[in-house]
C-alpha cells in the first residue's frame, strides 16, 4: 500500500486518474459497440417482424462478439491504387475525437473522467474532427463512390454543426456554465427539455445528421453510393468505422440526455442507471427512426438545415436570451 502511494506521488494523482479513465472509456466504448450492434439487429429484426440474431448465446447476445472475431480474422485488403498513408490513417483518426468526447461526460455526480469548465466546447471541437477522417477515407480510397460520399459528408457536417451549437446555447445561457456537470446540476428540479423543447428537437435532428444515420445517411447511402466513404475498407479497418459510428450515436445521445433530460438526475435509482436509461432510450429512438424512414435527398438535407433548423434555433436562442434578460 505504501509503495502504491509512493508511485502515486511520483507520477501524480491526475495521471493515474487519466489512465484509469482512459481504460474505463475504452471498455465502455467496446461494450457499447457490442450492445449497439446487438440492439440494432434486434430492433431492426422485430420492427420487420422477424427475430434477428438468436443462435449464438441466449437471445443472440454473444453474436456481436462472434461478429467482431470474424472481422478480426478477415484479410485487410488494400486496393491497388489507394493513397496508402491516408488510407491507413483514416480508420485510426476517426477514433480519437470519439474517445476525447467521453472525458467530459458526467455519468454520475462522482463519475466523470475530468470536469472541465469548457466541457461542451471540447466535445463540439473534437466531434467536428471526425468529418476530417471521413474525408481522408474517401479521398484516400481513390474510388468515385467513396469520394462522393466523403464530399457529401463534409457538406452535411458543416451544415449541421451550426444548428447543433445553436441549440445547445440556450441551455448554456440558462445554466450559466459550459461545464457538463454544472448543467446537469442545474436540472435538479425541471429538465431543460421542458424549457427548451425546440432546442431539444433541433439538437436531436442535427445530431442524427452528424452521426450519418438514416434518414440522413447520405455519406454511406448504400443504394446510391454502394457503401459511400468506406466502400474500399475491409476487416478491422471497416470495423473501426463501425465502432466509431456506434460510439458517436452513444455520445450524441449522452449529450442530449445531459443537456435536456437531466443527465444522471432521477429518483430512487442511482444516477448512473438513470444516465444509461436516458441515453439508451435516445439511442433506441435513433435506431427506430433508421428502420422507419427512407433517406432524404442531398439538397433537401442542406435546405432543411439552412432554411429550417438554423433560423428556428436562432430565433429560439434570441427569445431565450431575451426572456432571461427580462
Amino acid at each position: 500500500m505504501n509503495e502504491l502511494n509512493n508511485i502515486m506521488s511520483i507520477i501524480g494523482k491526475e495521471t493515474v486518474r487519466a489512465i484509469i479513465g482512459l481504460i474505463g472509456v475504452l471498455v465502455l466504448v467496446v461494450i457499447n459497440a457490442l450492445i449497439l450492434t446487438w440492439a440494432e439487429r434486434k430492433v431492426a429484426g422485430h420492427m420487420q417482424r422477424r427475430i434477428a440474431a438468436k443462435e449464438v448465446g441466449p437471445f443472440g447476445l454473444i453474436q456481436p462478439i462472434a461478429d467482431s472475431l470474424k472481422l478480426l480474422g478477415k484479410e485487410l485488403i488494400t486496393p491497388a491504387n489507394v493513397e496508402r498513408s491516408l488510407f491507413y490513417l483514416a480508420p485510426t483518426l476517426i477514433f480519437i475525437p470519439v474517445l476525447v468526447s467521453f472525458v467530459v461526460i458526467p455519468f454520475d455526480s462522482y463519475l466523470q473522467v475530468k470536469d472541465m469548465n469548457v466541457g461542451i466546447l471540447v466535445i463540439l471541437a473534437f466531434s467536428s474532427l471526425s468529418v476530417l477522417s471521413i474525408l481522408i477515407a474517401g479521398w484516400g480510397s481513390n474510388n468515385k463512390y467513396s469520394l462522393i460520399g466523403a464530399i457529401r459528408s463534409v457538406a452535411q457536417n458543416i451544415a449541421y454543426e451550426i444548428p447543433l451549437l445553436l441549440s445547445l446555447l440556450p441551455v448554456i445561457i440558462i445554466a450559466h456554465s459550459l461545464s457538463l456537470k454544472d448543467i446537469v446540476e442545474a436540472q435538479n428540479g425541471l429538465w431543460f427539455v421542458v424549457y427548451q423543447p425546440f432546442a431539444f428537437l433541433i439538437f436531436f435532428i442535427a445530431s442524427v445528421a452528424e452521426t450519418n444515420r438514416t434518414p440522413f445517411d447520405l455519406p454511406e447511402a448504400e443504394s446510391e453510393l454502394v457503401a459511400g466513404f468506406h466502400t474500399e475498407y475491409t476487416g478491422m479497418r471497416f470495423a473501426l468505422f463501425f465502432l466509431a459510428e456506434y460510439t458517436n450515436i452513444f455520445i450524441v445521445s449522452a449529450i442530449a440526455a445531459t443537456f435536456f433530460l437531466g443527465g444522471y438526475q432521477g429518483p430512487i435509482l442511482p444516477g448512473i442507471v438513470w444516465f444509461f436509461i436516458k441515453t439508451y432510450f435516445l439511442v433506441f429512438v435513433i435506431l427506430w427512426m433508421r428502420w422507419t424512414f427512407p433517406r432524404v435527398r442531398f439538397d433537401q438535407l442542406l435546405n432543411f438545415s439552412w432554411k429550417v433548423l438554423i433560423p428556428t434555433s436562432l430565433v429560439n436562442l434570441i427569445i431565450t436570451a431575451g426572456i432571461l434578460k427580462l
Partner: protein
Amino acid sequence: MTSVMDIINGAASLIVGMGVTIKAFFSPVVTVQYPRQTINITPRFRGHTKLVADDEKPERTKCIVCGMCERNCPSKSIKRVSGEKMEGEKKKTATEYILNFTTCSQCGICVETCPVDALAFSADYNLAGFKREDFYFDLVKEFEKRKTNR
C-alpha cells in the same frame, strides 16, 4: 406561413410512420425458424418426380419404359430410362431411371406426357449435396427405398 404548416404536417406523418413500426416491434414475428420449425407442404408441391407404384402389383412401378418423358423433357434432364421384360409380365419393367435434378425445372411435362401415369411429384424439398452427382437420382432405386420404408 404554408411552410410552417408543411413542417408540422410532415412531422406528423413521420410520427404516424414511426407508430407503424413500433406496432410491428411489439407484434409477434411472422418468420418460421426453419430447421427447428417446419411448415406443411401443400399436396401439389412439385419436388423431384417419383415413380408411382402399380395399382395391382404394388411391388413394381407403373413405368413401361416407353421413353416419352425422356423425349419430351425440355431440359434433357431425364438421362436414361431403361428396363427389361420380367417373367410373367406383359410390359417392360423399369430397372433404371436417371433424373438429373440439377437441370430439372419441375415443369411437369413428363408427368403429363406419361401414357400410364407412372410419374408424380414428390414432396422432398430439403435436398442438399456436395457435388452435382448427388442430384442424379435413380428413381427406381428411390422407389425401392420408399417401398422398404413403408
